[in-house]
């Protein structure tokens, strides 16, 4: 990461900027043209989403420019906000209070500290092994056994999704790939661009052509048309970005498809959780999108798989 402002990174950032400008223009034109209440509501939500994209892109760009530390801090903050949203929906009781204090103020910071220190051996097992065993022990010490299994299982789930999986995104910066030294910031940007464009493309294809629902009881907005169009477009976008990655074009295509598929799996699974808990969104922090978890559900599922595939096939 010695030369963060390299030409390829600037092209990427410029590309994102271009897409944002075009989206804002399209949004403004639609706002003038659209008629009818339902149409207006959709366009108003679309424009709120686009405005939030500007903010999110700016924050992410700033984090990348401050080199590794900014990215680790940004994803630690995202992780904190996501964990807070998740725990709100979990049926914890007074007996979990001290456990949750450990979870928020020790486990979460330690996980990101491990990422920052490039301690892969512990980073990969800290939450699935040590916290998995010790957090329930702390709750058991508090003595409240009512719905104990449900409480401990959901706390572990909250940690795995909001902390463990999210921490894989900045962990990409620690990967050592022969012939791709100093490039890992671009790998992170590649992941985020593919996973988020897959989300956006599924939304656009679904809004334009969506007819056949995939899982109507889970998410009425997920259609086969949106899914196929989104996967195809995200794969094309990812393939077109092969030059910023250590991958050959066909490898970039496979990686993009895997990222998009995992992203879809994340969106679907997290929708099922929201249905189960009886909420529409995880929160209200990001206008037009809902909570932080609503925005990163796909990233949570894609980041660990992308990390391990890249590490296994391309790592030193």
């Amino acid at each position, binding site marked *: 990461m010695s030369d963060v402002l390299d030409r390829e990174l600037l092209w990427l950032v410029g590309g994102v900027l271009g897409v944002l400008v075009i989206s804002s223009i399209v949004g403004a034109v639609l706002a003038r043209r659209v008629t009818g209440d339902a149409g207006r509501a959709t366009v108003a939500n679309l424009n709120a989403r686009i405005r939030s994209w500007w903010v999110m892109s700016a924050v992410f760009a700033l984090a990348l420019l401050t080199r590794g530390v900014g990215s680790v801090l940004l994803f630690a903050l995202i992780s*904190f906000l996501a*964990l*807070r*949203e998740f*725990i*709100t929906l979990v049926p*914890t009781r*007074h007996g979990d*209070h001290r456990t*949750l*204090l450990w979870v*928020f103020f020790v486990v979460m910071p330690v996980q990101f500290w491990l990422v920052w220190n490039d301690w892969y051996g512990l980073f990969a097992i800290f939450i699935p092994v040590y916290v998995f065993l010790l957090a329930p022990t702390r709750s058991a010490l508090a003595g409240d056994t009512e719905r104990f299994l449900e409480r401990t299982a959901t706390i572990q789930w909250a940690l795995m999704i909001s902390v463990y999986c999210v921490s894989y995104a900045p962990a990409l910066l620690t990967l050592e790939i022969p012939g791709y030294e100093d490039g890992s910031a671009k790998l992170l940007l590649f992941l985020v661009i593919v996973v988020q464009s897959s989300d956006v493309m599924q939304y656009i294809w679904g809004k334009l052509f969506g007819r056949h629902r995939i899982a109507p009881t889970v998410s009425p907005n997920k259609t086969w048309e949106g899914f196929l169009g989104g996967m195809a477009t995200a794969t094309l976008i990812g393939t077109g970005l092969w030059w910023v990655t250590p991958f050959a074009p066909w490898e970039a295509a496979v990686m993009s498809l895997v990222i998009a598929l995992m992203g879809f799996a994340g969106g679907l699974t997290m929708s099922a959780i929201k249905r189960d808990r009886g909420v529409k969104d995880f*929160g*209200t922090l990001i206008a037009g999108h809902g909570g932080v978890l609503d925005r990163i559900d796909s990233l949570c599922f894609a980041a660990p798989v992308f990390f391990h595939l890249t590490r296994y096939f391309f790592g030193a």
Partner: protein
Amino acid sequence: MTGIVAACVATLARLASGVSVRCVGDSPCRDQCIFFANHCSHLDFVVLWSVLPKDLRERTRPVAAKDYWEAGPLRRYAATRVFRAVLVDRQGSNFGQLRAQMDQLIEALDAGDSLIIFPEGTRGTGQEIGPFKSGLDYLARQRPDVDLVPVHLHNLYRIMPKGEFLPVPQLSCVSFGPPLLLQEGESKAAFLARAREAVESLQP
């Protein structure tokens, strides 16, 4: 200086409680009001106070227990200067002492301030809302021009349960309902029950 401290405390309370605000029905407070809410956490009045618009917040005084808030200089500073709390003596239970408490509240209302009160009288377990004590009814009869605004505080109990000293970050919700009016010939018990239901019905 105290104004800056108050603004910081309000911001901190909103951040720590991840609070969102819901207004059900009419605009909650036109001019002067008594906010009455369910009570289950130390965070309750701070969070309710912190979500009020600045000019209203500066004129709104929480009603709090004297023995707790006068223990130690920091608490006393917070209670008297930052929140401008009306500190009442909760030890007394005879008629004269209750009357003195009520006079303090009436005095604050007559000075033009709004109040935050918790009619359950003490913190509950976060499940059921307890029965309301009669102070609310007394205030409603003595000062009928003041709006009685029901407020429901959601999830603050899980953020900071009774007996804990550090909050677990979670999201919470403050819901304001339409003001309640004392009806012609309504008995004390009926009014208190209706007030309690008004708070309960705001649960998101």
